[in-house]
């Protein structure tokens, strides 16, 4: 089977698509073989998601042809694509939070029980099919649970299960692992191998280099809306790949972190969440110029912890001390006043203002410093400062007045980093700071973190990427199910030691 699979299951030829002001795709061609994992890589904004949305019938391409299983196709909606055997995991979570897991999985193709000419929902079959599906994928999710009540990673797991359940011949996965831990990602790879062994073609988009080499057979690289080339993974190495993506050499994955931790800036004492299911009795301290990594499995309550420190969640007990002084932090405003900044993990939900310009998105948290004595905003200074920050981070945008919703996910993330740098924080909390960010930008963000630490800033980095935790942190603190199970010095922090602490359940 595998040898005579020279035929392609999917061919996209000369696909172009432009949005007002942006040439998102410019004559892109992509050929995908059955039973193979075809990785699609490229910087943020290269056009990967746009290409896949054209395939899936969400966007109508301006030019180009799509051939699926030897037949020319033109999809007008997702329904057409699904029926023709293409399914997709979308970059942004796309579920209905108020409905149950089973309803979400079978949405749009619910099993029906016929009574005469009428079809009625077969709730029982829906439930059973979901149970079977979850079992076959080794997932433990209650089909009756409300989707919105699940953690983000479980929601992502549901999306994966849903995409698989279509029995499609081409499955597109647009950054499926961005909110998964490594264990879960490994589980995803197992699912992908099962799919390919059945002859399914998988298009896999990710910014995580290691994943590509673990799972992909072929890799296509895009840059600036153009296809650079397609290579067998066996014939390419990481450096070459990065070079092709960013168009320049990039030898190191992590910059050296040269700062040495100074006096204690932030001290957390015995912090317990008001939510009984969340973290309990967590204590730690953060020093000047230190990067503190927080690791753990998904569901370890890392996000809840840092959100609580930032005043977004209520505490039952415990103290927060900033520079040795007890800080009453009830709202983010209090936290910002104390020099704390916070980049959330949910970019779309609690990060960007889609309809505001990049300038305003950057400046929104620091407007207090840009109010003239007449109480008016100093637009010129605001504009200059946000331009400076975004240029420093290489945010790719037509102009500073572009609406942020028109940027790619990674570029949106850079704007968010700029936003918080503009508040001139002493303490920067970053929850999954490089989620969905391309290698080039990642390195830039790491460099920035190192620089900030060197300049005396303190950083807390919550991350699910082990290499990042190990490569960037002075110390790694590990949570498990809301308990602080240990803190590792840089020298002791290895994948194994972190994993051990992260799985230390009671």
């Amino acid at each position, binding site marked *: 089977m595998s040898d005579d699979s020279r035929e392609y299951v999917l061919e996209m030829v000369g696909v172009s698509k432009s949005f007002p002001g942006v040439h998102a795709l410019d004559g892109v061609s992509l050929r995908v073989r059955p039973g193979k994992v075809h990785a699609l890589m490229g910087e943020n904004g290269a056009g990967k998601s746009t290409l896949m949305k054209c395939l899936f019938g969400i966007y109508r391409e301006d030019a180009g042809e799509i051939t699926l299983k030897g037949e020319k196709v033109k999809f007008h909606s*997702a329904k057409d*694509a*699904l*029926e023709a055997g293409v399914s997709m995991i*979308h970059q942004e979570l796309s579920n*209905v*939070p108020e*409905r149950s897991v089973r309803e979400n999985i079978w*949405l749009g193709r*619910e099993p029906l029980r016929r009574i005469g000419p009428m079809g009625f929902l077969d709730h029982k079959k829906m439930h059973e099919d979901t149970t079977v599906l979850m079992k076959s994928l080794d997932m433990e999710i209650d089909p009756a649970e409300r989707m919105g009540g699940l953690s983000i990673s479980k929601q992502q797991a549901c999306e994966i299960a849903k995409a698989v359940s279509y029995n499609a011949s081409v499955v597109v996965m647009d950054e499926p692992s961005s909110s998964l831990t490594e264990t879960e990602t490994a589980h995803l790879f197992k699912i992908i191998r099962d799919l390919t062994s059945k002859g399914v073609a998988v298009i896999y988009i990710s910014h995580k280099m290691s994943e590509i080499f673990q799972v992909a057979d072929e890799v296509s690289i895009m840059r600036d809306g153009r296809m650079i080339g397609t290579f067998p993974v066996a014939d390419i190495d990481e450096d070459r790949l990065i070079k092709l993506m960013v168009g320049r050499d990039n030898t190191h994955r992590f910059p050296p972190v040269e700062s040495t931790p100074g006096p204690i800036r932030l001290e957390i004492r015995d912090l317990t969440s008001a939510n009984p299911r969340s973290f309990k009795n967590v204590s730690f301290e953060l020093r000047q110029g230190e990067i503190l990594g927080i690791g753990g499995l998904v569901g370890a309550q890392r996000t809840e912890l840092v959100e609580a420190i930032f005043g977004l969640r209520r505490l039952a007990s415990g103290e927060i001390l900033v520079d040795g002084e007890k800080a009453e932090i009830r709202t983010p405003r209090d936290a910002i006043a104390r020099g704390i900044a916070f980049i959330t993990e949910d970019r779309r939900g609690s990060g960007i203002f889609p309809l505001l310009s990049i300038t305003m998105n950057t400046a929104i948290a620091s407007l207090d410093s840009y109010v003239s004595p007449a109480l008016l905003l100093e637009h010129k200074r605001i504009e200059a400062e946000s331009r400076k920050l975004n240029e420093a981070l290489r945010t790719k945008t037509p102009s500073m007045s572009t609406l942020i919703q028109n940027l790619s996910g990674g570029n949106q993330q850079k704007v968010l980093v700029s936003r918080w740098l503009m508040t001139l924080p002493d303490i920067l909390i970053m929850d999954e700071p490089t989620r969905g960010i391309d290698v080039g930008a990642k390195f830039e963000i790491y460099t920035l973190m190192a620089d900030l630490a060197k300049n005396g800033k303190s950083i807390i980095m919550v991350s699910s990427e082990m290499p990042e935790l190990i490569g960037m942190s002075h110390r790694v603190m590990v949570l498990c199910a809301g308990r602080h199970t240990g803190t590792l010095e840089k020298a002791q922090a290895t994948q194994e030691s972190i994993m051990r602490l992260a799985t230390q359940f009671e």
Partner: protein
Amino acid sequence: MAANNAAGTLEARKGFRAFISKNTNLVTFITLAVGLGLLTSGRSFEWPSVRNLMIAESVRAFAALGVGMIIITRGIDLSIGYVVCLVASVAASFAQTPDYTAALYPGIDFPLWLPLMAGVVTGGIFGLFNGVLIAYGKLPAFIATLGTMSIARGAQLIYTRAAVVGSLKDSYKVISQGSLGPIPNLAIYVAIACVFIWILLRHTKRGTNFYAIGGNSMAARVSGINVERETVVVYTYAGLLYGIAGCLLAGRLGLANALTANGMELDAIAAVTVGGISQTGGVGTMSGMIIGVLTLGIINYGMTYLGVDSYYQLLVKGFIIIVAVWFDMKKYARRA
């Protein structure tokens, strides 16, 4: 043993509290009903009172079921009142006694199905129009239905020349005014409609689509749901329900004029919101809608029954709506 028992009570108490916090709407309704019962020394529980309440709320119930479904898809409809008014006028015009000199079509005796047909079709057309404007024209529902409201109102005045369309045939009136034993026809129609809507929302694909569109229209779209078509469908269904409401209202009154049903949209929307249909979309049940209608109904009916000064009625109603919805909202607050 004793400890066991206590635990059992605790458990039961917990279950009860969970039930209450899940069914705030029902609790509100029962509280008000019992309160009114106490104030009227139980007379509000007697059959004639219950019957009156059912009759009074039946027409509004149809409107509420329609707009309730629309709100589930995260829409809104301000055109209800004038569409019902137009429908009632159209239906009435075909049901006038033919020897009545001021009839719109004097001397013609139309068959009984015609007014019903004409009314329901009129409602459906307006619903369809709303749906198309919102789904394909991409107009915000608020403004699209504000426009159709104005159109329906103009159409009613043009059609009737602002005259009362009265003197309806008894055979038509009995459709609304009749009873099956002690149970008024209107209540039976509402019950039938409720069963249909319940099946639609709970047991059909279409109903699931409505929830999905309201909950996350992007997710619905990528799951292969034709969001535009389903949007048109929900507004059309609602329009058909308004059509039925209008036909029944004309029969109930024996006439229709330019003031008939004015303001019904706000009553219906307030009712379903009190019934827990969230304006953020994707949430709500048929029973919630009906409980909401009955809750507002009991407020109106109770104040009339008790003879509350009409100036104060508005004040009281405003406060009760706010308190009822506030109470219901606590449910979501707790979840977050």
